[in-house]
């Protein structure tokens, strides 16, 4: 997920070309207070004229407690991006309040309530504590994301490359997302020149369950894709498992073995996930 400041037309118009799976068009932290209105108008017009190709488009609005949040929703909701991202989400109640406003605007424009997702950004200690109820408060909640920089600030700690201070938050947020079967996106890696550090952090994020990672520079996209893309060996193994599963299922067998190792439903599900990532279909 590539962050793009909502007041930067040069970056916005090229947003779709870098191969990111999704774009986060930002009206919040990336935009200075005196540019908020300009950014909103720019984004509203640009989203109607620029092709972002295959990338999903999410818009991060300002918090409803600011003078800009409601105006952001009024401008962006009618355009029905893939998702609205809500910053500093701290409770299910406030997210529900946001969704009610979104649905009021959708009604005014005769838009359905089931197309656009809401992504909750967890970046305060309170948000981390309430994340399970936030994730499950509405079927419109399609993803959770963690905001590492704001969270460390809220915790009064310094962000360190090993992520020690936010490790608990990371895992708690992942667990909430997994419980509700929604996506969960890891925070940005701030040092754009440290490719090795980015690889390490992305590998860790993948290992603990994040389904993706946010980036602040397009140069980081390929690195993250590389980490998340299954290797040829992983795909070969997964293919074999799923194929054997399908063959055995035809024969009425639920549990079987490959190379002496038992294959049951969870293993098959994991293998199918790898094949889905690699866009591989198994035929028997």
């Amino acid at each position: 997920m590539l962050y793009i400041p909502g007041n930067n037309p040069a970056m916005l118009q090229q947003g779709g070309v870098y191969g990111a799976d999704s774009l986060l068009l930002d009206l919040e932290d990336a935009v200075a207070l005196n540019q908020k209105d300009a950014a909103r108008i720019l984004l509203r017009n640009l989203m109607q004229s620029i092709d972002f190709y295959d990338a999903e488009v999410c818009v991060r609005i300002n918090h409803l407690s600011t003078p800009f949040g409601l105006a952001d929703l009024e401008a962006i909701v009618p355009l029905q991006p893939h998702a609205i991202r809500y910053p500093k989400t701290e409770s299910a109640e406030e997210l529900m309040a946001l969704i009610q406003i979104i649905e009021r605007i959708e009604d005014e424009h005769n838009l359905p309530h089931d197309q656009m997702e809401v992504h909750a950004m967890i970046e305060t200690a309170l948000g981390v504590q309430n994340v399970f109820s936030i994730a499950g408060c509405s079927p419109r909640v399609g993803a959770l994301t963690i905001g590492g920089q704001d969270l460390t600030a809220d915790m009064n700690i310094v962000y360190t490359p090993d992520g020690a201070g936010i490790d608990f938050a990371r895992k708690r947020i992942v667990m909430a997302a997994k419980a509700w079967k929604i996506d969960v996106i890891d925070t940005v890696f701030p040092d754009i020149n440290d490719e090795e550090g980015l690889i390490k952090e992305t590998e860790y994020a993948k290992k603990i369950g994040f389904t993706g990672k946010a980036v602040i520079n397009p140069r980081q996209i390929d690195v993250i894709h590389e980490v998340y893309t299954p290797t040829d060996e992983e795909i070969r193994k997964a293919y074999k498992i799923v194929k054997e599963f399908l063959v055995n299922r035809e024969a009425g067998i639920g549990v079987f073995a490959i190379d002496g190792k038992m294959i049951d439903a969870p293993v098959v599900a994991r293998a199918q996930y790898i094949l889905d990532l690699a866009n591989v279909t198994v035929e028997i």
Partner: protein
Amino acid sequence: MKNALGREIPEYIEGIGKLEPFEGAWAKLSKGWMDEPTIPAPNKATLPHQSKLCDSLQEAIEKANPKNGMTITFHHHLRDGDIILVMAMNILHDMGIRDITLAASSLNDCHDPILPFIQDKTITKIWSSGIRGKLGRAISRGAMDLPVIIHSHGGRVRAIHTGRIQPDIAIIAASAADCEGNATGSHGKSAFGSIGYAVIDARYAKHVIVVTDNLVPYPCIPLSITQNFIDTVVVVDSIGDTSKIASGTTRITNSPMDLRIAKLAADAIEYSGYFEQGFSFQVGAGGASLAVAKFIREKMKKQQIKGSFMLGGVTSYCVDMLEEGLFETIFDVQSFDAAVSKSLFNNRRHIEIPAALYANPFNCGCMTNKLDIVVLGALEVDVDFNVNVITGSEGNIRGASGGHSDTASGANLTVVVCPSFRGRIPIIKNSVHTIVTPGESVHVIVTERGICVNPLYKHLEENFRKAGLKVVDIHDLKKEVDGITGISRKLKFTDKIVGLVEYRDGTIIDVIYELEEK
């Protein structure tokens, strides 16, 4: 008369002569011989142990017996750090020599100080592969009576061989030379690497002056320029600004846009069918074009592919690939950074070549003919795949033909990389302002928005699609980009021709008109 690309070409220009229209990238060469004769090189003599050393450049130039109407040549290996050309032209101007034909292999911003000599008719004719800076702007606005003639690097050699350019005096700056004029650019405080473009000047000029800031004991090795062609040798305090000649190592761009384009281009190369054991490769020194080398390097390592040779303008990145064993050899006609000079001096597989061997179309096989893959930049491209590398969007002459058309003509796969728009200016046009490289010699154009395949090379499109690469029709891409940027206002020109663009075979591929807006 119209040439094969539909550009209107005058049949004759007073002061230039008869012009031959471009017929096609390989049309003229396909006969196998050339009607133009090779003119004889001058025969000269010196007596045994006669000193060639002069006390000053002034003295050396005086000994060369400069005359009104003469032709003087320079090389551009010192890039934007060169001070010798301006120094020499100042001397000639002060001597009152007029009506000079300046045939520098390229002109850079550092040559801006000669603009007054154009305005006062000290210089009345220019041959060069590139013109930039104030000179380019002034010439585009009609500063000269005669059009400048833009040639390719290979075309320059051909033009000298056939007598289109007849050098009276050649001034060759060298970072090391001996008292007899054996000279090189590969070492010394002002090292610039290969001196390949100057070899033809040394061979054909009636009087050749070597200028160095590093006189070494005889013999100066390597013998990049050999003493048998050199009349005089001058030692000066400095031949140029070393920080602008060559410094450090070339770094790959950090620009996400350039990297995106480069990655797409490298993917296209990988699936083109030409990325295989023993392939040969040339890549430019800047932006996206050099960044392609980064991705090709990774692919070569991953797939354990070893190339044959790298050619042309050489960066430290090419040297790294040579040292890693990814290529067998570098043939170097021009070096771009200090690290390259060291490699050229020390590594026997890093070989200095003259421009004639590099790209002259009038011989039995220059090295560009042996190229598999070349990656080139562009100022503009059009829907017919023609490429402009000489005039900018505002109509000014501001670039260089260089080896663009030479390598495109020779390579099995010519990949042109450019953004689809710069600032608010679309780069893909219906018709480029100035054609330097004809579309028939360009296989693919890669922008950040995908790979455009020349319909003449359909097999490539099939390869790319099978590999899942993003292929876009160039007309569709143009429409998309125009939708983002709008269509640029048309520039206004007078009917005065200020530049002739020679194709490498000497035919005229395009003309440049004077900008109406001053």
